[in-house]
């Protein structure tokens, strides 16, 4: 019997998900022994035409990382969806939109403007910006159009499973590949990680007070955090209580607060407002002005609570009435 065929593909992402696969180290040889990787641009030379030539459903699984923000990416993931029995959204960007999703509080024109017109190091003043179509002496060059809104993978194609994390932890990748090979998968739509909060696996759990009463929120550069004690109890915005476990609390081991890359547990729809609820509930005051003053110490609510999940939020992107009926 031939080995199951597997594809890896990337959209709007950083390449960290690829690195995470390489970080399987010697286990990658086991994977290669068990499956045929037929498409993986970062490491293998197969091209799109090779995928197009495959029969529909002939891939056992396609692991797709990255958010979706161009028609080119949309076409590629639709192609892979046709060819693959299972699609796994791999990593925070495919799962929830990821850090590139922070662009969803702006419009495409703002991004272009900042990068090509307002940049401190673009001073030659010819006002050029990238265009979908450019006539050059030898012919026509085209660029894919970027969407106004960054999307999660399951906002454009059907997704069977999710591997969370930025990037997904190696043990979860191994576990996911194992359960696919053994055909021991949970119900479709599942996130392939434990369904409990990060605090559950945090080494500092014992130091977390039963009831917290926060008078002050601190930013990481403002204190020398005690390396043994619960970071939330020290006033840092650690999102452990609302984030899914599975990473071994890696950032907390690095003595920095959890920023929520694993996303929520299955009980939560909108990670950002849930995280916001958890943090606001800690405030130890009943006076409206004092409450506001304490919460004002949280410098950037959207960037803090939706760091990895703005496109997956209930609002998807910021709202601008004048653009509301406009382009995607």
């Amino acid at each position, binding site marked *: 019997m031939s080995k199951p065929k597997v594809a890896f593909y990337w959209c709007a992402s950083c390449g960290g998900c690829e690195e995470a696969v390489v970080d399987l180290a010697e286990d990658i040889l086991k994977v290669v022994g068990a499956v045929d990787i037929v498409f993986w641009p970062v490491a293998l030379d197969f091209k799109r035409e090779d995928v197009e030539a495959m029969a529909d459903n002939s891939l056992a699984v396609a692991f797709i990382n990255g958010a979706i923000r161009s028609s080119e990416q949309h076409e590629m993931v639709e192609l892979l969806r046709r060819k693959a029995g299972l699609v796994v959204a791999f990593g925070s960007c495919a799962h929830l939109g990821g850090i590139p999703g922070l662009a969803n509080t702006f419009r495409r024109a703002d991004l272009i403007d900042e990068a090509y017109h307002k940049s401190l190091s673009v001073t030659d003043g010819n006002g050029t910006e990238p265009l979908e179509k450019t006539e050059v002496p030898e012919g026509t060059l085209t660029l894919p159009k970027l969407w106004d809104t960054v999307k999660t993978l399951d906002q454009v194609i059907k997704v069977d499973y999710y591997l969370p994390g930025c990037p997904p932890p190696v043990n979860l990748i191994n576990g996911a590949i194992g359960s696919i090979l053994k055909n021991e998968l949970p119900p479709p739509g599942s996130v392939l990680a434990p369904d409990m909060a990060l605090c559950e696996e945090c080494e500092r759990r014992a130091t977390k007070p039963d009831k917290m009463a926060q008078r002050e929120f601190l930013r990481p550069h403002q204190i020398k955090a005690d390396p043994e004690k619960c970071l939330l109890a020290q006033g840092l915005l650690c999102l452990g209580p609302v984030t899914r476990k599975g990473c071994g609390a890696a950032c907390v081991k690095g003595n920095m607060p959890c920023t929520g890359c694993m996303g929520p547990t299955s009980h939560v729809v909108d990670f950002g407002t849930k995280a*916001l*609820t958890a943090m606001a509930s800690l405030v130890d005051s009943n006076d409206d002005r004092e409450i506001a003053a304490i919460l004002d110490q949280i410098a950037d609510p959207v960037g803090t609570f939706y760091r990895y999940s703005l496109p997956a939020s209930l609002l998807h*992107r910021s709202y601008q*009435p004048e653009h509301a*009926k406009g382009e995607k």
Partner: protein
Amino acid sequence: MSDKDTNQKPFEPRIVAFFCNWCTYTAADLAGTARMTYAPNVRVIRVMCSGRLDPQFILTALRQGADGVLIGGCHPGDCHYQEGNYKALRRFTLLKRLLREMGIEDERVQLEWIAASEGDKVQKVINRITEDVRRLGPLHLEPEALDRATEALLPDQTPAVAEGGAL
């Protein structure tokens, strides 16, 4: 939501109101028995306490077609559960900052303390938010590509903090 786009009639805001069982809902009841008239744009959802109001509910209402959301709870110090409305206040304070940054105008989402006896305040507040939202116009959120989020929302809403993460 298609009626928003195609309807030629003047815009009539749709407002979802989450009223606490003990104060604001009772006040709304009182306004009814007293035959006070107020704008018919509000759909009231009774919750046991404003402290039960998960901010996800507010966004869900907006996502599902509401143009505005009104939250009514007991006055500070009067909570049937001692502290629930303070919890609501803390969350609402931070949520407002987040919504502002997300471009949702302040007037679309409002919190009011309304005691059981304040039927007239229910009338006044509902009329006011209806006019506020009417002035702002309909809310056109980025459409849902696949209906994942909204589908997942309705059944099985579980308590505020995920298991293992009790605060």
